[in-house]
């Protein structure tokens, strides 16, 4: 059942607008420091300025003025690239125009006429033994890779920097996930990969599995020569983090952040989806304020956009950010995958449990409230059936959430996974779904605005959610314990000891969950200074302790009853 804030957001936030932004951005290769990322940031900046945020500015890096002088990096731009077979036959393999993911980032350019060299197959290509005894200087190495980005890095370092090859060609497909994403059922996918070092000694191409297999078969018949042309530049990089601010009216020092990254490959619709929703969130909030449907927030809302990792790092270095003042940072990665086309689900990767916060419970509760899409047969108004999948998983460092977590800022990450087209040339804007973008926006904007506007009553509401969710987790664990014990007594080998170890394990889990819930309740004190609220929090914590003990007692009693039965 949606609350009024959620209903306002559902009415205002337009998934199609988010999609249009994302679609526009996919035209650019958006490597850090590139022309494409600068155009993306400029596009986003113009949107935020148009929406009337209180302040929109950029933090440039590296810059002594901003304290970001040590953020030195190598930028990379690409204009064109192609790879073809010239002996024993002439056949085009792929090109930047056809599959922009084929040229590995930070590849060095070739002379304008290109280079022609012999191809040598080294098998997987991730260990020294794959290369020993082969003459590779001045040649091109073909390596299958091991399904990991690190395997690509190792293959490049061995082939080019250790054994003197001109470049690497690989049909490595990373993030394989049977049965949805393996090389055999994605024979034409060309995965984004990156040259690992900045020594500027060589280049690397990714080709499809079909092309890789073709080359291996050709090599069995005799020598093969390839022609490679690359028009690209490595340069001393300059970039910036874009910041948009809606200033809080009562507690401006407390902040809620929306973090997305404008970096990405071309087309890279997954990352572009995050930018699209980030822009649409800003419009939605400003529009609701301007229409008088919501008050201006009590706390400051910030929008941060730039190169994943380094951009946010620049912002953190340039500002004296006090972690305790950032209540939550909502991090967007690929937030809009079409779930049917990508075999995908929206995922809330929880903020790390090691950082005490109410944010996870609030997000989970909001997902449940807004994820209602279709009518049951017996109703005309209330939609009770979920059509968009939205799963909750533990903390996983996919994006800027890792950096924020390290400085103790609660940072739930939103992205789609699995994704059969992830980081390939096929992840174009048509693989995004405006409805999924909207769902992610509904959840995150609702939670952000609730926190940003929280007074005593809202804080009290958040506390009730945390307490209810905490108790529900106790129940889930106790049911798991009962199931495990029942499985145990119906198994071939049953013993007192094994029942006891199940009971101890699950009681330990309840201790852990109680500690997490109590710390989450404690974190609400950071929102507002109110003695009555603090007393209520103390009472909730006391109740939580009692329920914990009761749940543990019930598990132990169940074990004891089973132990006394004839099954043991």
């Amino acid at each position, binding site marked *: 059942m949606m609350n009024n804030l959620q209903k306002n957001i559902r009415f205002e936030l337009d998934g199609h607008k988010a999609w249009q932004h994302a679609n526009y951005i996919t035209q650019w290769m958006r490597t850090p420091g590139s022309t494409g990322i600068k155009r993306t940031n400029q596009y986003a900046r113009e949107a935020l300025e148009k929406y009337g945020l209180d302040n929109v500015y950029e933090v440039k890096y590296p810059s002594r003025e901003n304290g970001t002088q040590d953020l030195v990096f190598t930028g990379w731009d690409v204009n064109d690239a192609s790879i073809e077979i010239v002996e024993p036959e002439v056949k085009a393999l792929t090109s930047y125009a056809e599959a922009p993911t084929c040229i590995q980032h930070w590849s060095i350019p070739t002379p304008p006429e290109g280079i022609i060299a012999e191809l040598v197959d080294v098998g997987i290509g991730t260990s020294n033994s794959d290369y020993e005894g082969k003459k590779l200087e001045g040649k091109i190495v073909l390596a299958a890779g091991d399904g990991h980005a690190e395997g690509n890095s190792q293959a490049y370092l061995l082939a080019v920097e250790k054994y003197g090859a001109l470049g690497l060609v690989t049909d490595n497909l990373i993030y394989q996930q049977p049965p949805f994403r393996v090389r055999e059922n994605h024979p034409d996918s060309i995965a984004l990969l990156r040259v690992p070092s900045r020594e500027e000694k060589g280049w690397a191409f990714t080709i499809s599995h079909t092309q890789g297999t073709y080359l291996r078969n050709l090599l069995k018949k005799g020598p093969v020569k390839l022609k490679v042309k690359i028009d690209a530049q490595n340069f001393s990089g300059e970039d910036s983090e874009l910041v948009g601010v809606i200033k809080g009216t009562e507690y401006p020092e407390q902040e809620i952040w929306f973090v997305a990254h404008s970096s990405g490959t071309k087309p890279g619709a997954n990352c572009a989806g995050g930018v699209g929703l980030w822009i649409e969130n800003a419009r939605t909030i400003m529009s609701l304020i301007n229409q008088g449907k919501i008050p201006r927030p009590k706390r400051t809302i910030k929008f941060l956009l730039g190169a994943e990792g380094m951009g946010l790092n620049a912002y953190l270095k340039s500002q004296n950010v006090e972690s305790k003042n950032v209540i939550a940072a909502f991090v967007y990665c690929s937030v809009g995958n079409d779930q049917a086309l990508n075999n995908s689900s929206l995922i809330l990767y929880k903020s*790390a449990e090691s950082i005490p916060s109410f944010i996870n419970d609030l997000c989970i509760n909001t997902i449940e409230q807004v994820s209602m899409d279709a009518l049951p047969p017996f109703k005309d108004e209330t939609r009770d059936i979920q059509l968009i999948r939205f799963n909750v998983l*533990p*903390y*996983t460092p996919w994006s800027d959430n890792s950096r924020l977590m390290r*400085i103790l800022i609660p940072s739930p990450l939103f992205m789609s996974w699995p994704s059969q087209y992830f980081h390939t040339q096929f992840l174009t804007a048509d693989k995004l779904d405006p409805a999924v973008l909207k769902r992610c926006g509904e959840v995150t904007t609702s939670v952000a605005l609730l926190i940003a506007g929280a007074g005593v009553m809202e804080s009290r509401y958040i506390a009730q959610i945390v307490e209810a969710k905490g108790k529900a987790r106790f129940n889930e664990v106790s049911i798991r314990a009962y199931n495990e014990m029942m499985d145990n007594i119906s198994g071939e080998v049953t013993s007192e000891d094994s029942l006891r170890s199940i009971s101890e394990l699950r009681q330990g889990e309840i201790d852990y*969950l109680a500690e997490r819930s109590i710390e989450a309740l404690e974190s609400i004190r950071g929102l507002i200074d109110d003695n009555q609220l603090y007393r209520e929090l103390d009472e909730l914590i006391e109740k939580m302790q009692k329920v914990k003990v009761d749940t543990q007692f019930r598990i132990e009693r169940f074990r004891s009853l089973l132990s006394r039965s004839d099954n043991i």
Partner: protein
Amino acid sequence: LKSNSQKIIPKIIEGIILPVSRPDFNLRWEMCRNMKEVDADVNFYSIRPLSHEFMNFIDGKRSVEEIASAVGYEYNIKIDEKHVLLLFKDLEKRGLIKLHRREID
């Protein structure tokens, strides 16, 4: 490093911010192989999030055993103290944390 009557308490060395980057490639594979023997669910990609949380839970009070248990519950993975120590000994060697021994009361 540890006898049965001792707990190992990791402490971050003052002024140090622990790394966001992945642990070394070979260390990750070593951790993965070791952990997989105890829980088949562990894979190569598990190691980065688990390592982050191993580090996050360091507060100068929790023992390595308690950290293993907390992260195990968070991810529903069986984690042994020795798996966490693989990472922590590497961090200690790099001068980022110190492993203290404490007698069990």
